[in-house]
């Protein structure tokens, strides 16, 4: 195997020193001359017709520069795809959820803007609310979304393999229902943006955006302006986890207010607004039936799932497909039938959250697998090993697995958690749970889907890299700098990270699904090769060589096999600049053209390359008196191909796991019967703290992905997918109580214990 000098090393993050000194500027930190402050008036109702909005008093308040409502926008709906354009910048005819923004104010300071909100009078006609999937599907249910004449936002149905035969061949069949709650995304930086409009009408938006080009496209559509009329620049972003892809009322309102006033407008939310009214994860109601042979080998799976997703589709159609698609993997399932529905409701809008809906699918299937293992007396580790997908595997739905390190992941996780020893002597109230998962390295979606990177060579020999992928904390910038350095034969310090700016960076489809390392990573390599090719052509004649013979290593440019016949990198760069007058740019792009655009409705197609794998083992302690669960230790056997930066990868794996431990145990966004959110503050909405999170260990299982940059796979989100079932299974292992409804609260545990003892 090739040894790398920069790739595979845990180099310091490019932004670590900036962030640790407080010099990283996030959207809320920005200012501009003449800047106004914006605030948003929110709906007290979850569902209501807007009869009238009177803004006259607010407008008359000294210091108020403008007040807008949904009517100040062109009324053009936008959405993830042409068939699901079902949202407006701000509502016009009705409100759809508690806390939805109905009007916005720009004023000279925040206090004045706040005061103006109190002067806006909105007349509503209250409408009946649709809270649950059951409400949404009830005959005669009120319609939630004005652009759709049904509460079914999307459906995905598929059947792969011979399901009937699979169940016939089964020695044992088990069917169970599972459900999950509404959870908030939970990044710490609230939504914020600064919008400016120049005298030609061109907009500059600097926001806390995970996928700025998704925001940009949707905004230009809904504002009815060409893309070139808006520039979007990303400052530092305080976490995304799929909660910051699309434009929100925050962004639209800031832009519109800036257009009207001709002054910069900044809007920064307070976190209670985020918890009440912004992106959450869909609630799930699922039923799974599994068939297995006597040894535990899966023969067939049948699954139904309804996701309750709030008043807009967002990325929901993809979620409902993803849930079914990832039941196909990481276990070998020859036949699978799936029926999924996404329904509208009057709760907060959903996008997705870290790990996408694989998180929920995996909670169901790995819980069910554990139950099967218990029923048949099969060891939990063996059960997973026997079903683990190997390399060169084609899933029932057509997903192709090139390289799988899952068996080793399972082996390592069980070894490090001490599974075998734990079976010999079981400690009271202690248990170990397992779950596996697979996560793709970025799916191919419709529309623009490629990744591109540009390298700008400076006269001093350093290289500035810009790419469409955006740094939101996950560390992608560092990873691209490492890859560029490796490919150019330069030290890591020679690569400087540029700014994400739609005027200069080449666009990207977005920062989701573990795609950055893989897609932009390949584009980085392509860009570096392009730069080398240009430089080789300039240098070769003076070395009496052909350009193809030129190599780049250790800051040297030389003829292959003859390191002495060459020159320093800097000399080569100067040759380009001073002798040829040739400023050099390397350009590269990458797109997985050989994979399919999956039909979300039928599930057909090979969705992705670079499936990463994980096996998670979590040790828990359950207090029988209080029902409290303590997470003691978690071990992740993680196959992310070639880790580009092992320490950063560990941080991603641990972070996803801690995040989902909140989903498993503590977090739930609660709604009253009128659809009002009850716990929209961190006092009442409990995200895991350092005391809640267990001690984490990551075991890297090195594999080499044939399509990935340097053999890497996308990384980071798999642990989100494997954590919840591992916790649920650990709790069962500890006290013999199975909870299938998330979150697993002490009340549910105590009730379960009581029922068990009553038996």
């Amino acid at each position: 195997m090739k040894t790398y000098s920069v790739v595979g090393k845990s180099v310091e993050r490019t932004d670590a020193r900036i962030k640790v000194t407080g010099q990283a500027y996030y959207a809320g930190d920005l200012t501009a001359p003449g800047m106004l402050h914006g605030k948003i008036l929110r709906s007290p109702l979850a569902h209501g017709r807007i009869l009238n909005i009177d803004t006259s008093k607010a407008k008359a308040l000294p210091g108020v520069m403008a007040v807008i409502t949904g009517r100040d926008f062109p009324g053009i709906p936008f959405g993830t795809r042409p068939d699901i354009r079902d949202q407006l910048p701000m509502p016009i005819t009705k409100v759809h959820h508690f806390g939805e923004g109905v009007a916005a104010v720009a004023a000279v300071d925040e206090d004045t803007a706040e005061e103006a909100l109190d002067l806006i009078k909105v007349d509503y006609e209250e409408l009946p609310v649709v809270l649950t999937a059951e409400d949404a599907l009830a005959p005669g249910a009120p319609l939630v979304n004005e652009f759709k004449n049904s509460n079914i936002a999307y459906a995905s149905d598929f059947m792969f393999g011979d399901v009937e035969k699979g169940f016939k061949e089964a020695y044992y069949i088990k069917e169970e229902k599972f459900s999950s709650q509404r959870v908030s995304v939970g990044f710490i930086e609230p939504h914020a943006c600064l919008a400016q409009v120049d005298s030609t009408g061109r907009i500059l938006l600097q926001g806390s955006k995970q996928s700025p080009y998704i925001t940009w496209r949707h905004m230009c559509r809904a504002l009815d302006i060409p893309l070139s009329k808006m520039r979007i620049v990303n400052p530092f972003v305080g976490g995304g986890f799929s909660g910051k892809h699309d434009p929100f009322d925050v962004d639209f309102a800031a832009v519109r207010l800036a257009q009207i006033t001709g002054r910069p407008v900044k809007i920064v939310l307070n976190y209670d607004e985020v918890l009440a009214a912004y992106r959450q994860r869909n609630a799930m109601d699922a039923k799974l039936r599994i068939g297995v042979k006597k040894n535990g080998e899966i023969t067939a799976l049948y699954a139904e799932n309804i996701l309750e997703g709030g008043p807009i589709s967002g990325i929901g159609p993809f979620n409902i497909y993803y849930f079914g698609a990832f039941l196909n993997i990481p276990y070998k399932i020859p036949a699978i039938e799936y029926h999924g529905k996404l329904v509208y409701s009057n709760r907060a809008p959903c996008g997705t959250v870290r790990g996408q809906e694989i998180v929920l699918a995996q909670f169901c299937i790995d819980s069910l697998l554990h139950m099967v293992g218990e029923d048949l007396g099969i060891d939990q580790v063996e059960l997973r090993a026997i079903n683990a997908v190997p390399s060169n595997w084609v899933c029932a739905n057509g997903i192709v697995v090139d390289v799988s390190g899952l068996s080793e992941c399972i082996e390592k996780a069980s070894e490090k958690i001490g599974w075998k020893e734990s079976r010999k002597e079981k400690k009271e109230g202690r248990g170990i749970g397992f779950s596996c998962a697979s996560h793709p390295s970025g799916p191919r979606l419709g529309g623009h889907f490629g990744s591109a990177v540009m390298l700008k060579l400076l006269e001093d020999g350093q290289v500035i890299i810009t790419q469409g992928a955006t740094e939101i904390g996950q560390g992608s910038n560092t990873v691209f700098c490492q890859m560029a350095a490796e490919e150019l034969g330069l030290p890591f310090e020679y690569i400087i990270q540029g700014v994400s700016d739609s005027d200069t960076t080449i666009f990207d489809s977005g920062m989701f699904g573990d795609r950055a390392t893989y897609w932009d990573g390949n584009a980085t390599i392509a860009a570096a090769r392009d730069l080398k090719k240009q430089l080789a052509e300039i240098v070769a004649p003076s070395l009496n060589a052909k350009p193809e013979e030129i190599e780049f290593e250790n800051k040297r440019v030389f003829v292959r096999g003859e390191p002495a016949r060459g020159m320093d990198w800097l000399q080569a760069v100067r040759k380009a600049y001073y002798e040829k007058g040739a400023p050099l740019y390397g350009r590269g792009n990458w797109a997985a053209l050989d994979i399919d655009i999956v039909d979300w409705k039928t599930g057909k197609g090979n969705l992705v390359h670079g499936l990463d794998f994980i096996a998670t083992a979590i040790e828990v302690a359950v207090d029988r008196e209080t029902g409290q669960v303590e997470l003691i230790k978690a071990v992740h056997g993680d196959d992310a191909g070639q880790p580009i930066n092992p320490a950063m990868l560990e941080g991603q794996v641990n972070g996803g796991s801690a995040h989902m431990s909140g989903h498993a145990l503590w977090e739930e966004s609660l709604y009253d019967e009128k659809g009002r959110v009850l716990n929209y503050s961190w006092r009442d909405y409990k995200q895991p703290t350092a005391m809640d999170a267990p001690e984490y260990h990551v075991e890297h299982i090195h594999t080499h992905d044939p399509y990935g940059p340097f053999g890497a796979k996308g990384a980071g989100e798999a642990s989100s997918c494997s954590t919840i079932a591992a916790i649920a299974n650990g709790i069962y292992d500890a006290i013999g109580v199975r909870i299938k409804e998330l979150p697993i609260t002490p009340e549910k545990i105590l009730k379960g214990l009581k029922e068990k003892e009553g038996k």
Partner: protein
Amino acid sequence: MKQDITLKVNGIEYHLSIEPQRTLVEVLRDTLGLTGTKKSCNEGECGACTVLMDDKPVASCLVLAVSAQGKEITTIEGLAKDTKLHPVQEAFVKKTAIQCGFCTPGMVMVAKAFLAENPKPTPAQVRKAISGNLCRCTGYQQIVDAIMAAAEANT
């Protein structure tokens, strides 16, 4: 009605005229431009706004600026000496304890104050010390490792 106050931040005295209801985080960020201190929940729940007041960590969103007079206030901007990072900062960098970085200033301030009082902590004590600071990115492990490493570097 504005009030004249004197605040000492990172060793520098500032004479300011502010409204008495302004919190310390607002004055630090909006008046002094020290935006390294972050604000998120504005109610003492996330720890992002943590600064030191006479070496004790406080949620600066819960402190009125007027009541911070006469105290030594230290913010994240006041830790490094030129380009030399404070040992806690250095440990956060070296141990990969930073991802999005939004929680980082608050975490570093808490860690600094904690280590000053507890130079040889256990990981469990470290976890308790930072339990008022939310981080969604890291899962806390590398933050705990960093604080332990900073403690070790000091002994």
